[in-house]
């Protein structure tokens, strides 16, 4: 975009001095023993919640469909193990608010009886739409955390004739290594999933972006990809937020996604490596998405590492499995940069949960904010080219429109600004607040307009009725006058 870009520099993002990924990333994958119960949420994806297909008291088997898609943009949910449905109701959602959301609670019987997965023909002999249907039926959503249902995404890609798949193995969040683990241990599955996705979307080639702080994953993936020249492994610099789709697309293709548009608009589609592995299992083995690899990490965890855990396992069970050295000062679902703080440990994991962090007080030290010295660190760190300090200054005085004009809407909420700020100003936090306020005002405006419309309609109706009455009265009067004029007295 011209010479000014050179002067502005492209040194976006942050390099946390210690990414805390190891030793957890180097510990071999462990399989979590079955807990006593699972709470499988109905809304684990972008779109409408799934609709329960079982009732309390029903016995369910591993892999059984327990909730169907609740709309055109939705995803089904499957039972992760065998047991009895003991409740269909609200549990605490993985959100700082601690508000409830609907889930199916299954008390497991420990037998882990599964349904028979149907035999699957070679996906490359199937029509892309059929493969997409299999992906949809398996309940696969973006496992990188965005949780957009994968099948509609692939369909969109095919409709827009995307040429290139971008496979996101960035995993730029500190502490997390679940994607790393998938690539190390299941590289062939990932690559097969990529090939299936290429078939489904019609993409001609695929670029797998992996941060260069994961040499083992890069080596494993390179080995797995040897026979497939259309797929290339592309190490990218380890720099947060490299795993953000817009940033990864730019680094791998040199193209920018226009503001407000999807990546598909520039002919690329981004999918996460764990999603690809899940697609492989769904399409080749007929296995729905009912478990995933979760990184359990943080200073308070005794044995950090990657755990293959059923979806819907409670965070407390997961932490009990990994063990706690000390009482965590904060529990986080996701990474430390964008993850959500959990209100307590009785929260189920979801499909998009790549990590559970039990952080110590020392790890989350929050310094008191001091005044902004306009050092510009946030401006240089912002991967979107925004001016966080200017937006925050406006938000501080309630000038949300001013912040909006500075493209607040383009903020990824990656947290780089708040991370680097030497004055420890809660920058991204104030942007959350402002986005909420702007949304609230837009809602209010809509409501006001609707009220105005109703009021106008009522006024129109009353006027019309008055007019009609007046007209009717005039007519009657005229009729009377005509009668009187003709001299015939009314009988």
């Amino acid at each position, binding site marked *: 975009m011209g010479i000014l870009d050179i002067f502005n520099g492209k040194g976006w993002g942050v390099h946390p001095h210690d990414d805390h990924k190891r030793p957890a990333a180097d510990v071999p994958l462990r399989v979590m023993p079955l807990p006593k119960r699972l709470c499988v949420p109905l809304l684990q994806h972008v779109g409408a919640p799934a609709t329960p297909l079982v009732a309390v008291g029903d016995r369910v088997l591993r892999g059984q469909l327990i909730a169907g898609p609740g709309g055109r943009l939705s995803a089904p949910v499957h039972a992760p193990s065998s047991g009895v449905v003991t409740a269909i109701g609200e549990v605490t959602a993985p959100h700082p608010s601690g508000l409830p959301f609907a889930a199916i609670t299954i008390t497991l019987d420990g037998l882990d009886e599964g349904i028979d997965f149907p035999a699957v023909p070679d996906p490359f002999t199937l029509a892309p739409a059929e493969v997409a249907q299999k992906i949809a039926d398996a309940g696969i959503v973006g496992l990188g955390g965005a949780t957009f249902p994968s099948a509609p995404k692939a369909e969109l890609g095919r409709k827009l004739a995307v040429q290139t798949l971008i496979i996101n193995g960035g995993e730029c969040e500190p502490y997390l290594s679940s994607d790393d683990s998938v690539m190390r241990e299941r590289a062939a599955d990932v690559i097969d999933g990529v090939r299936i996705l290429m078939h489904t979307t019609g993409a001609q080639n695929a670029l797998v972006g992996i941060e260069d702080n994961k040499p083992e994953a890069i080596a494993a993936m390179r080995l797995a990809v040897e026979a497939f020249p259309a797929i290339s492994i592309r190490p990218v610099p380890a720099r947060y937020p490299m795993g953000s789709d817009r940033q990864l697309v730019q680094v791998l293709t040199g193209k920018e996604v226009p503001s407000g548009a999807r990546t598909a608009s520039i002919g690329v589609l981004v999918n996460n490596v764990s999603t690809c592995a899940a697609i492989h299992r769904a399409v080749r083995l007929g296995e729905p998405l009912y478990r995933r690899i979760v990184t359990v990490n943080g200073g308070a965890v005794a044995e950090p590492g990657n755990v293959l855990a059923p979806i819907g396992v409670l965070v407390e069970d997961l*932490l009990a499995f990994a063990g706690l050295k000390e009482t965590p000062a904060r529990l986080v679902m996701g990474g430390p940069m964008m*993850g959500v*703080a959990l209100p307590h440990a009785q929260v189920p994991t979801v499909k998009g949960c790549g990590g559970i962090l039990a952080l110590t007080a020392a790890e*989350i030290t929050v310094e008191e904010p*001091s*005044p902004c010295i306009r050092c510009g660190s946030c*401006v240089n760190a912002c991967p979107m080219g*925004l001016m966080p300090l200017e937006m925050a200054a406006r938000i501080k005085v309630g000038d949300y429109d001013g912040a909006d004009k500075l493209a607040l809407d383009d903020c990824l909420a990656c947290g780089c600004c708040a*991370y680097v700020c030497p004055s420890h100003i809660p920058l991204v936090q104030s942007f959350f607040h402002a986005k909420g306020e702007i949304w609230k005002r837009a809602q209010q405006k809509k409501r006001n307009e609707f009220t105005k419309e109703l009021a106008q309609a009522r006024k129109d109706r009353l006027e019309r009725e008055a007019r009609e009455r007046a007209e009717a009265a005039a007519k009657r009067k005229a009729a009377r006058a005509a009668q009187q004029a003709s001299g015939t007295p009314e009988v």
Partner: protein
Amino acid sequence: MNTSLSTSLPAVAASPHAQAQGSIGSVMAKVMLALAPATVCGLWFFGWPAFSLWLITILAAVLGEALCLRLMGKPVQATLLDGSAVLTGWLLALSLPPWAPWWIGVVGGLFATIIGKQVFGGVGQNLFNPAMIGRVALLVSFPVQMTAWVAPAMGVHAPGLAESLQITFGGAGIPDAMTSASLLGQAKTELSRGVDLLHTFANGLPTSFSGVRPGSLGETAVVLIAAGGVAMLFMGIISWHIPVSMLAAIAIPALIAHGINPARYLDAGAHVLSGGAMLGAFFIATDYVSSPSSRAGQLVFGAGCGFLTWVIRTYGGYPEGVAFAVLLMNALTPAIDRLVKPRVYGRDYKGQPIVLDKKEK
């Protein structure tokens, strides 16, 4: 194990749950560290009077800050510990004639932090560079004291401690034998008398990288000032944009003008190596608070500082122009920040979403 998991965690906060190391205090400390070698060298050049003035100026700046904080009921100790007032006093001291009387330091230091900074609302709020506000106030009010330069004594011919105290506190002023003119001052004076530069500096320009020449504390040891600046670049405290654009914008017009008429215009070397150019480029103009926060904006700002410095030096009434140039550009900083923003990802420089090239699609 579960027993150690409290049912409800005390603090639930928005992301990010991590923070980089660093604080205002550590930034200020690094700047002071970068300033230290040049300061020590300057103090050795000019002896005890310079040291007294340096100390007094810093103390006055800190006192001004403390007084205001106290009056406004803000935390005094915590704010003073961020080091910004010390740095303001330090930078101001480096821009003063080293043998100036004590009250120059006191007035300048108080003016810098009280009028230049606290009146605007304290750290981060000031529109202008406080040290330069102090210097310009002194220059305009006390032109005689502010242009009384001495040749470096280099320790050898330096006045003793008693004599030094007499110079700074006694009101005796500078012994005539020791007064000297700075290069820029000499050029201006001689030009105004009708003597051209070729005659004034017939024996060559008194510029030297060693910095052994009359001037303020912070302008003589140019090499050490530049080295401190480069150290700050490596520490990531400043970026190259302001220093490079400022020095280039002084050097390029000087180069052209000198090439056309060497009798009237000083060469680029004289401009860059003398006066406050180096200190200004690395330590003054790069002040976070009063400079633009985008890289492109910093280039515009630096270039403005440099060009104005050259204009003021060449055509203005004062021999030196860095302080005025920086203050003038400080006034433009909000405008620059408004007009020169980084390009938002996925948008053009006008802020509109980028339009896809049909071929690309």
